[in-house]
């Protein structure tokens, strides 16, 4: 399943050649197991993420959204494909580039847009912003803005799954840049040592902010970092939705069956800057164009049409529907109230505030 060397492309063709010799492909298997409607649903999710984020960019330019805005555009196939394997009892952790994972996990976009607008109706009550989407009712534990540390929290939830025998699996997303810090290694060691049900999904988009992979990591095949822990790992084409779905599915089953964690390295590419402020001096327009021409969303759309799963006209209708939903989320966010000043008191800081005592005596 995994190749030790070569580009994303090489891995894809190798995977395909193995599979075609069995005269079935991720596509034929997915169609057989899931049916055409589910395949169209994945398209809808990817397109919803894309259009939601394009709207985010617009709202950011209009100063409706503040702070950092890290877009997932170009990487949608990884999040949608990977999360499609999860059950309700499973858990998701991610980093600050969290919009795609939240939407793939089924979070309603109205509270997401409201969160970006800093509104009380936001998924985190306007306290977190773009980098801190969460919805505990969906076991979506949040985006985390400190690179690398949330991997340990993910291990902790996996420990709960194991100790309380919930049969749950934790999927945690992070970037290539997060694999150089100590917390990454601590989290891998703990997970393998205690056979925790964690699927570590590294979205290798070839850059940590503007620092290229080969400049920031002594080992550029990130999946091999798992070898130090005798952990199962794989490198996959993160831009091939159905391939991601199938291979990450194997990782999820491995974790769920009690065999321990898996490190998945999904090769992908972000089309936009690291954040909305990025001037992108570290890569050429041609590079970006080359990747854009292999847009995973366009490729998937073409597959659905070519394989006669869904006519273009129906996909177009889905797009129109999504545009309306996204516009409605802006309206929802615009019309929502801002959070109240209780967030500036102990009541906003502690689950059990000690009422008689204020945090700051000068505020009495």
């Amino acid at each position: 399943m995994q190749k030790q060397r070569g580009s994303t492309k090489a891995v894809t063709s190798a995977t395909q050649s193995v599979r075609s010799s069995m005269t079935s492909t991720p596509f034929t298997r997915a169609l057989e197991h899931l049916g055409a409607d589910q395949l169209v649903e994945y398209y809808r999710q990817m397109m919803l993420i894309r259009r939601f984020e394009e709207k985010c960019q617009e709202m950011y330019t209009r100063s409706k959204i503040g702070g950092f805005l890290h877009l997932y555009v170009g990487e949608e196939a990884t999040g949608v494909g990977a999360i499609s394997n999860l059950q309700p009892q499973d858990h998701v952790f991610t980093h600050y580039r969290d919009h795609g994972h939240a939407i793939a996990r089924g979070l309603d976009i109205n509270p997401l847009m409201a969160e970006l607008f800093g509104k009380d109706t936001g998924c985190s009550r306007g306290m977190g912003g773009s980098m801190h989407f969460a919805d505990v009712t969906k076991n979506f534990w949040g985006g985390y803005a400190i690179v690398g540390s949330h991997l340990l929290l993910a291990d902790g939830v996996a420990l709960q799954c194991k100790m309380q025998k919930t049969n749950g699996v934790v999927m945690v997303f992070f970037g290539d840049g997060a694999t150089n810090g100590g917390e990454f290694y601590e989290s891998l060691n703990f997970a393998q040592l205690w056979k925790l049900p964690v699927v570590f999904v590294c979205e290798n988009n070839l850059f940590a902010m503007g620092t290229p992979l080969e400049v920031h990591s002594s080992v550029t095949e990130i999946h091999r970092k798992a070898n130090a822990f005798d952990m199962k790992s794989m490198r996959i084409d993160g831009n091939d939705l159905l391939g991601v779905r199938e291979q990450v599915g194997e990782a999820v089953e491995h974790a769920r069956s009690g065999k321990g964690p898996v490190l998945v390295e999904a090769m992908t590419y972000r089309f936009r800057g690291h954040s909305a402020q990025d001037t992108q001096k570290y890569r050429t327009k041609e590079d970006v164009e080359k990747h854009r021409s292999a847009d995973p969303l366009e490729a998937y759309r073409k597959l659905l049409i070519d394989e006669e799963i869904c006519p273009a006209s129906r996909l177009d209708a889905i797009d129109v529907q999504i545009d309306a939903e996204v516009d409605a989320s802006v309206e929802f966010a615009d019309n929502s109230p801002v959070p109240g000043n209780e967030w500036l008191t102990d009541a906003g800081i502690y689950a059990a505030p000690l009422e008689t005592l204020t945090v700051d005596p000068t505020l009495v």
Partner: protein
Amino acid sequence: MAILTVREALQQALHEAMQDERVFIIGEDIGHYGSTYGVTAGFLEKYGPERIRDAPIAEAGILGLATGAAMAGMRPIAEIMSVNFSLLAFDIIINHAAKIYSMFGGKFSVPLVMRTTNGWTQLSATHSQSFDAMFAYIPGLKVVAPATPADMKGMFRAAMADPDPVIFIEHTLMYGVKGEVPDGDYIVPIGKSVLAREGRHLTVVTYSRMVHLSLQAAELLAQEGIEVEVVDLRTLRPLDMSVALESFKKTNHAVVVTEDWQSYGTSAEIATRLYEAGFDYLDAPIQRVNFREVPMPYAKNLEQQVVVTTERIVAAIKKVLNRS
């Protein structure tokens, strides 16, 4: 009432906590080794390795896993052998455990208790520090540092019942301290200070091991007719100054005794609060007794000059009262 050591009182509290199936202990050398300060001795045998989790030497990992497990409904007790090692976990403690409740809009919290120790015994610069002020600086943490066996047990219970992250600070030189411990279940609430000794000439405001040294100083001064009132803060965040201020209004003199560095340390905050709210009652400048501000020396003669002693407390009290 039974007379117990701090260690025994904590053991009782931990056994009591373990009655809850959601509770587990995670830390270095808490099981097979038999526990660095003996508190969890015998726990591995009694509760097994699932709930007494000997962890690798990975402080961020210990706190990170405990934080995640707490979010998901467990009630972890994370033990950091010595507070000096907690520096490796500050990212998790400050950026995560302390922030999660507020940052995600109050939708979930981190019911975590981190036990750790202050202390010094010729351990030199990296093993003799106090970071009380660094924890207490952080909105989102609750920080307790009890002084007596009874408070250790009662406040541990309060910490376990609390839905927020609690830093529970013990002291390596206090495990053998004895005191009366009430029978049965009781809770000593977080955020309530207490009078440790009554007096009328001067108020000593202190906490943790310094309570005992301050009481010794008060005992010595009583022989000279100086009656010192001692206030034990017990909790550093949220800081309850009500008892100290009441006392200060009566005595009009105060000394703050804390076992950490003076500049930007806990005594700076405590003295400021006294000045802010008690200015009209002030008869003399407040004095502070703390570690001397150097990395802790190894040599015994030097170490003795850095740490707080009963003599230094007595001298500070006399200075404020203008007695010699």
